[in-house]
């Protein structure tokens, strides 16, 4: 399957959408070439602001732009938004300013720079803030389609973008809707619910499971908050066994959100794939790093098998 860069698709989409919507502005904290905001900068220099390594002030500047009627996209590495957590809480979430925070190089995708540059807790932090919507994109097509959806969604949004290239999963007919998950594969025995780069790994896992007679749903839960709980409950009722998969800690992210939804209404067996409450290591390769920290296709397959077995107990 053809692989495409998620961050590049995001950057190009931002420039394309900027042409359609003159209210879009972009701020970035000295990582423009990394997070691919250069396409926008080239086309709309008067709406592009590189503010240097000032993540806290960048968030505040974005809040100010929003107060002035703009739709600012503030960009940096996902881990660096943690530095501005209070700014995000006070000036974006609580003040309910129409700011879009784009956390790039998400999860372990900046494998080579090591654990300082990995991030396992951004979703947990963002998700617990009132007013905040949290989305993550699974491929280049979804990244491209998510940009207008995020811009036109009134209120604060945290958009998580991976540094990596992944197989293209969606065709051009796919319609992104914030708050609505996409079912990529139908099943009956177990449901694999994933976000970001783990979606394509779950599709691979589902193929392997099929060979063993386990029929797995695969869901791209691109909106982590508000969670598509209706779908989670439906899948729980139908299969009784769920597996979540994310490039994030198993605490507080997608797995946490699904567990909360299940506990609230429709308990079911749940296995969570993700970083298991540990810091990580530097690696020469992203795929190997994911495998090493328990997020391999094999890990997903085994989690699904366990889940299926547990529901019969």
């Amino acid at each position, binding site marked *: 399957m053809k692989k495409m860069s998620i961050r590049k698709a995001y950057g190009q989409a931002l420039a394309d959408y900027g042409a359609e919507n003159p209210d879009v502005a972009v701020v970035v904290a000295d990582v423009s070439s990394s997070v691919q905001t250069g396409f926008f900068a080239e086309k709309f220099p008067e709406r592009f602001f590189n503010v*240097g390594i000032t993540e806290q002030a960048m968030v505040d500047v974005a809040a100010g732009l929003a107060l*002035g009627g703009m739709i600012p996209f503030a960009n940096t590495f996902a881990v660096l938004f943690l530095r501005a957590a209070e700014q995000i809480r*006070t000036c974006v979430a*609580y003040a309910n300013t129409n700011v879009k925070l784009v956390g790039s190089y998400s999860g372990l995708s900046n494998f080579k720079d090591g654990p300082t540059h990995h991030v396992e807790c951004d979703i947990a932090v963002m998700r617990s803030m009132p007013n905040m919507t949290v989305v993550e994109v699974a491929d280049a097509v979804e990244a491209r389609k998510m940009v207008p959806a995020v811009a036109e969604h009134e209120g604060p949004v945290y958009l998580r973008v991976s540094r990596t290239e992944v197989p293209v999963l969606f065709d051009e007919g796919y319609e992104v809707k914030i708050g609505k998950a996409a079912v990529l594969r139908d099943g009956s025995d177990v449901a694999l619910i994933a976000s970001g780069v783990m979606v394509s790994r779950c599709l691979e896992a589902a193929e392997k499971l099929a060979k063993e007679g386990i029929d797995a749903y695969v869901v791209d839960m691109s909106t982590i908050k508000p969670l598509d709980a209706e779908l989670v409950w439906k899948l729980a009722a139908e299969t009784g066994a769920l597996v979540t998969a994310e490039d994030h800690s198993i605490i507080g992210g997608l797995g946490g959100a699904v567990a909360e939804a299940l506990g609230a209404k429709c308990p079911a067996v749940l296995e969570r794939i993700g970083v298991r409450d540990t810091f990580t290591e530097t690696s020469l390769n992203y795929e190997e790093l994911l495998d090493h920290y328990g997020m391999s296709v094999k890990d997903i397959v085994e989690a699904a098998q366990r889940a299926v077995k547990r529901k019969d107990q």
Partner: protein
Amino acid sequence: MTYHPERLVRELDEIAQELRLDALGMIYRRKAGHPGGSLSASEIITALIFHQLKIDPKRPDWEERDRFILSKGHACSLLYAALARRGFFPREELQTWGHIGGRLQGHPDRLKTPGVDMTTGMEGHGIAVGAGLCLAARIKNLSYDVYVLVGDGECQCGVLWEGAMIASKYRLSELTVIVDHNHVQLDGPVHEILPLDSLVDKWKAFNFATIEINGNNMREVLDALDMAKEIRNKPTAIIAHTTKGRGVSFMENKAAWHGRPPNDEEFAQAVSELRRFPKQ
């Protein structure tokens, strides 16, 4: 620079003193609030709300209004008193400060209180938010000015200086920062907690035009705001030396009065002192 007639200065001075009484009364009744940094800022807030700002109480969301960010949001009792007196909401509503369901939060909330342009209370944000507002005005071709009132303790925040660098990078002459330099913060004198000297040199080094004044002198405040408006090509910082707890003898220059309300006796004495206006 416009000459400010004596009558205007006197009128504004009287309002500033009335606002001190209002604010202290609010703090006394609520048994919570920040008297020291509210009393020090009265001339500055009065000059802005009652003279300098292009605002309209009937249209708090007017797109072309000047913006005022009370970055030192803990001085909100004085801001609320000023906004009420200026007609943004009824003065009786000041009695509801801090009540559940009310529009006046413990610190300013832009979504609840008419006339509050930005939610504040966590120190350090005002300048960068103000810079964003100035950048938006440029893109949208609007001509409003942005005023940000910060505390001197607040000048210890890193994000404040990040914002200052951004404002000077983009030469935001529409931005005026006023430092309520009352020399005392929550835990004690600023020079003991974390020295700022030289504060004026710091702003100069960050490429701001600087004006140093007595911030409790209404004429100096008005003149400085006029001068700031005329400065081109760079933002301005007005370093306004003030007295924390200004106007109440036992509160003046005392860190203990940063965030505690007066009791019955203290309030009675404070009121009688503040009513002895005009000052000596």
